Structure formats: structure tokens, C-alpha cells
């Protein structure tokens, strides 16, 4: 087993000044997922054939486009990056969960 973290090392790294500096440098990535409908590309090989399945969801809520990072896992299960512990069998369910969990972002309704 390699040397474990030393208590002094941990204390220094966890100090608010250093943790904040680190987080300031942990810039959020600017990716193609940031704008427009999120796309998932799934690939596999089967009996010598290469399969590519591209899935794109275009979602509106109350007529307004919703830029949402839905992702299709290899087995077809959906996940939504804003709700990291959730998985969905249905895209409609994923949007229902978003509306319920982000009330500030979906004002109006009932």
C-alpha cells in the first residue's frame, strides 16, 4: 500500500483559502452539450457490423425550449445530469422530475 494522506497535508489542502483557489481554477467545461439539444451517440459491434445509434431530445416546457442534458446509457436507461442520483425509463418522466426538483426554474403551472 502506498503512503496514505498525512493529516497535515489534508489540513493544509482543506483550508478555505486553498480550497477556494482550487475551485476557482476548476473552470466548468464549455462543451458542445452546453447549447442546443443534447446528443447521445452509442456504438457497438455485432456479428462484424458496426452499429451507431444517435439519440437527440428536443424538449419544450410551456412552449419554451428546455436545454437539458439528457443522456442515454448503453442499456437504454435515461439519466439527467442535473439529478445525478436519478435514472429514468421515460424522457417524459425525466422532465416531470426536473420540474418537481427545480421549482425556481419552472415557475407558473399549478
Amino acid at each position, binding site marked *: 500500500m502506498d503512503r496514505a*494522506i498525512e493529516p497535515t497535508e489534508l489540513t493544509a489542502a482543506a483550508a478555505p483559502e486553498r480550497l477556494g483557489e482550487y*475551485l476557482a481554477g*476548476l473552470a466548468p467545461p464549455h462543451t458542445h452539450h452546453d447549447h442546443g439539444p443534447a446528443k447521445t451517440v452509442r456504438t457497438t459491434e455485432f456479428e462484424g457490423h458496426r452499429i451507431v445509434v444517435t439519440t437527440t431530445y428536443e424538449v419544450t416546457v410551456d412552449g419554451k425550449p428546455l436545454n437539458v442534458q439528457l443522456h442515454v446509457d*448503453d*442499456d437504454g436507461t435515461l439519466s439527467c*445530469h*442535473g439529478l445525478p442520483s436519478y435514472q429514468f425509463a421515460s424522457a417524459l418522466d425525466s422532465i416531470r422530475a426536473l420540474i418537481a426538483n*427545480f421549482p425556481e426554474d419552472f415557475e407558473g403551472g399549478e
Partner: protein
Amino acid sequence: MAVVRKNILTDATARDDYVRGVGLLKREPSGHTTAELGIPGPTNPVSTYDLFVVWHIRAMMKPVPPSGDHRVRNAAHRGPIFLPWHRVMLAALEANLQRVLQKPQFALPYWDWAADGELGAPAGAKIWKDTYMGGQGDPVADGPFRYDPADPDTFTIRLRSDSNGKILQTERGLRRIFGQGPPIGSPTMPTSTEQKEALAFDPGTADPVDRYDSSPFHVSSEGFRSRLEGFAPRNNKPHLHNQVHMWVGGDMGPAHSPNDPVFFLHHCNVDRIWEGWMDRYGRLYAPDMSFPAAVYEGHRIDDPIVSPLGPSATPRKVMDMSTLYVYDVKP
């Protein structure tokens, strides 16, 4: 000297210290502002506690490897790094609590949620009583983290994530909405039986490390990590860690879940279960460094964990934390 992490329900001193320490960290200016941290809106000071909210969201948005897709695996979730990353985060919070409490012997308590899962009505469990974490509400209206807009020191949520993981400023009380049905939440909590099943999982392969995780090392993987994180078995229901987030609901659902102080008690228990697994099978981890960086960097045994410790914290280096802490009881 290692501190001893104990069940919050059996250690009133740890409970009271935790509540007091969280309050102190919420009120302590970190010396950094929203502008410095790249958070849009007016420039406001960010508390030390809220740095942990930012860290969790930022790690979730960070693809590893850099050319990867953070929706597949990110620096803290959906892969083997899930347990090591949260272990480092908890240790960093514990160090800050020891500092503000001026109590080096303070140990983060854990919430043994599987015990509550055995109850018919976990909403009535002791952890949610006024003298512990308080109950549910929008905002939470009892317990140490209740919201009172007339009190300048009231527990206030100041940073949140949106549905895409972008950090936004807000000012409101803590939300918890227990036991909502699918797809909004989970009506049940994990049970001790489910926890035992995850600990006992045997992939039936020759390589012992497959017990921890196996290719493709993401949510579809078999193995203890994916079971404890809550993605396996794949049967359209949440499990263990994920199920607890979904049962508590409210602020425990989104990427900003460390806003709820119960987050750290929950993850301390996840860490305790991992430690119990390592007691059974050894300090095993996968993937090793033979797996290609182009796909797995950030999740391999000697890759730096996304933390201010840099290369000093890798999965290999955090598998044994006994110089820092131990648990009173392991599952």
C-alpha cells in the same frame, strides 16, 4: 491519532458538535467571492461550507478524462472514483470542522440509513427529530437548519445548481420532501438486506478486483461500487446511495445536494460501508493503470482525485485512511 467516527444516533456529543460546526462553517467567510469562483450574478462572499457545495457541482461537471463526456463518467460519480472522491471530500470537511470547533478529536458522525429503511415509516425516524436534523418542509421549519427570514444567522441556501449543473445564486431555506413516488423521488429507503446483498455481491470471475468494479466502469457495470452508488442491479429502481438522495428529496436531489447537512452524514455511512467491504475482501480497486488513459483517466488507481490535494490523493492513497479516522462499527 485517528478519530473514531460514530453513529449520530448514539453519540450526542458528535451530533451537537456537527450541528455547531456546520453553523460556524456556514457563517465563516472563505475569503473567496462568487465572482472569483465564476458564479454569475452580484459579487457576494462565499462561506467555507458553501465551498463544498461548489466542489461537488464542479466535480460533477468535470469530464474525466478531459476529452470524455461528464454525463457518462465524471470526476465524482458514475464510475469507480465515486467512493474515493467522496472520501476525500468528507475528510476535508472533517478537517474544517475540527478547526472551527477547535476540537482535533472531532469525528464526522454517520447516519445508518439502512436501519431506518427497516422502519415502516422512515419519515418518523429519530434522525429527523427537532433535536437532530429537523424534518421535511419547503422550507424546513424545525431543527437546527430551519429557515427564519427574520434571523440574520438562519440556515440559508445561497448557491444552487440548475438542471444542467450550472451554479446560480439564491437566497432561501433548505428543502426536504420525503418519500415522493417515482419519477420525482423514491417512496422507500434502502434496507439492511439490500446493503448485505451489495456487500456480498460476487461477479463469479477469476479476478478478485472485479468485485469492486469491472469494465466498462460506468453505471452499467456490475460490482460493489455500482451497487453502493445505486445504479445496479439495473431494474429501473434506485438503490442504496441514490435511493437515499431520492427519498430525502428537495435539496438532496440536485447536484447541489451538499447544501443539506444530512448529505455528509449520508456519505459518511456510504464510506463506512465501503470500509466494511474492504474488511471482507481486502483493499482492492479497479481499474488499474493498464487501462487506457484516453478512456479511463481520472478513475484509475493512481490517477489524482479532483481535489486540492493534487497527486497526493489517488484511489490507492485513500484506500487506507486509518491514520486519520476509523469507524466504531462496520457493516
